[in-house]
């Protein structure tokens, strides 16, 4: 088996994960896509470790760290998603628009002393 195959597979997995993060709107699906990204990386690390005949198996140790931290990260991420879901009854990322650029940007004279009072009166 040629050494480049697992690397290509890793790159493809990463690309799929990338598509998932960018295209999916459900937060859980995005979380899964992020897991896919991390798995692509671990595949790369393990195959590099084998290709390079690393005496200390650095790639494999790195993989263990990624697995554990990814587990912690997912636990945390699911907790946050759950919190948002309980509040809004949706985990759709497209709905998370409370924090965003203002639709109508503030203009310079809008904040001038006269207009501020009008603003408050409104």
């Amino acid at each position, binding site marked *: 088996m040629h050494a480049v195959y697992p690397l290509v597979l890793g790159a493809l997995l990463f690309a799929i994960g990338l598509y998932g993060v960018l295209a999916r709107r459900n937060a859980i699906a995005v979380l899964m896509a992020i897991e896919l990204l991390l798995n692509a990386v671990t595949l790369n690390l393990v195959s590099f470790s084998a290709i390079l*005949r690393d005496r*200390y198996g650095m790639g494999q140790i790195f993989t263990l760290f990624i697995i554990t*931290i990814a587990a912690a990260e997912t636990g945390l991420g699911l*907790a946050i998603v759950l*919190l948002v879901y309980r*509040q809004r009854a949706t985990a759709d990322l497209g709905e998370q628009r409370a924090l965003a650029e203002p639709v109508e940007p503030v203009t310079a004279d809008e904040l001038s002393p006269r207009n501020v009072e009008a603003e408050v009166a409104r």
Partner: protein
Amino acid sequence: MSILAASSTTATFVAPHVEFGKLSPMLIAFGTATLGILVEAFAPRKQRYGIQVGLALVGIAASFAAVLALAGTTASVVAQGSVAVDGTTLFLQGTILVISFVAFLVIAERKTDQNQDAFAAQGASVPGSAAERETTRRGWQTTEVYPLLMFSVGGMLLFPAANDLLTMFVALEALSLPLYLVCGLARHRRLLSQEAALKYFLLGAFSSAFFLYGAAMLYGYAGSVNLAVIAQHVAHPTAGSTLLYTGVALLGMGLLFKVGAAPFHMWTPDVYQGAPTPVTGFMAAATKIAAFGALVRVLDVGLGVNSAENVWRPVMQAVAIITMIVGGVLALTQRDIKRMLAYSAILNAGYLLIGVTSTTAQARAAVLFYLPVYGVAIIGAFAVVTLVRDAGGEATDLSRWAGLGRRAPIPAALLAVFLLAFAGIPFTSIFIGKFAIFQAALAAGSPDLVIVAVLASALAAFFYLRVVVVMFFSDPLPQGPTIAHPSIAVKTALAVAAFATVALGVAPSLLLHLANNSAGILAK
């Protein structure tokens, strides 16, 4: 080449040598955090707040003492090449600890908001529910915030010291994961807060995946994740540089995300606006310092060889220019003070990137000087924001700040000091910092960057001064926001921040000297 043969190689293992003394600042921080969890588990609910705050402050002070004790020792790479303890590391660690101390004073504040801190009584309860009213009535508090933030501080101490990519990754996650959580715990405006946590988490996890993919590529290129070994391979290439270039690009994306540089800045305004304001101040200052420390170490120790520098420098310069333009222009359009300060943080990341791309010792010293002075000022600015309150939390809309200077001269004057410093008015610390960075960039031969930076500064001066004008030259609102009277802790924090901002502008030589001495020492 068969990959199957590799599994037959076995290695005899030698027990690693770990210099615990040199690692003591980080060990103390992580130890304090672990103790904090035990306090959460076993201390009675009423006493947790006091114990946690005391423990965190003592932990930070002890860690700072450890940094001072290590100052002046010879630069060395410890723990089998994983952690570099050198002048730059110690300078940044000291800075992070001082800033964390000030930030914790603001975070622990309870006097400004009816004897409650800035965090939800119980993170899991739905806002407005009966469960939440019950927990609030009983005076419950999420005191887990303090151990969580101590873990974050530990990660920040390790991040700029990490000398291999694995340690750097662990530090990155140790500093980020607690922050994702704490961002979602604001007592008021929970909706915004939770949304900020969600966005920060998803984008942060996304960017750390890029960091990891880059690390994997560099591992494939050099056969090691150690920065010094990577540098050797870059200096004497044995293979094609495809893996190197992809690795550097991906790793850079991960680091630039943490730094908050455009085009990876999208999370910054949303998270800064939604997070509890004291935490925003902490993030804006300390995370930025740690992330720039790590960026400098990767670029200097791992990729500081000429052939590599010629590859990453133009890209980083472009990123610096984009960052300054995005930060400066978008800050103009903001009506929320926290969001405006977020864009100002992006703009400042741009200035710092100029210093990073000019790899001279002078530029390094300028970056080291800029980080603490910027950090102290931004913490002070966010601390003032916590004082201006409406019924539903802080009044962050700029239109509500009209005439604040007449109703509350002291907080308004303090904020004016910080904003004038950001605007780069002479006799403030950030003016000296900017001057040092621009001077270093000119000496390193990149006048184009300086021109953009000066134009961005002029633009920035406009929106900083606009806030000052709104505060001092408008009539106060009839039903304006109330100004909370803070405890002595927050008063101290504000006084320290304002004093440092002015004093380091008038007499910067001590810190400049320290930065100069520290910048040259980089253990390789």
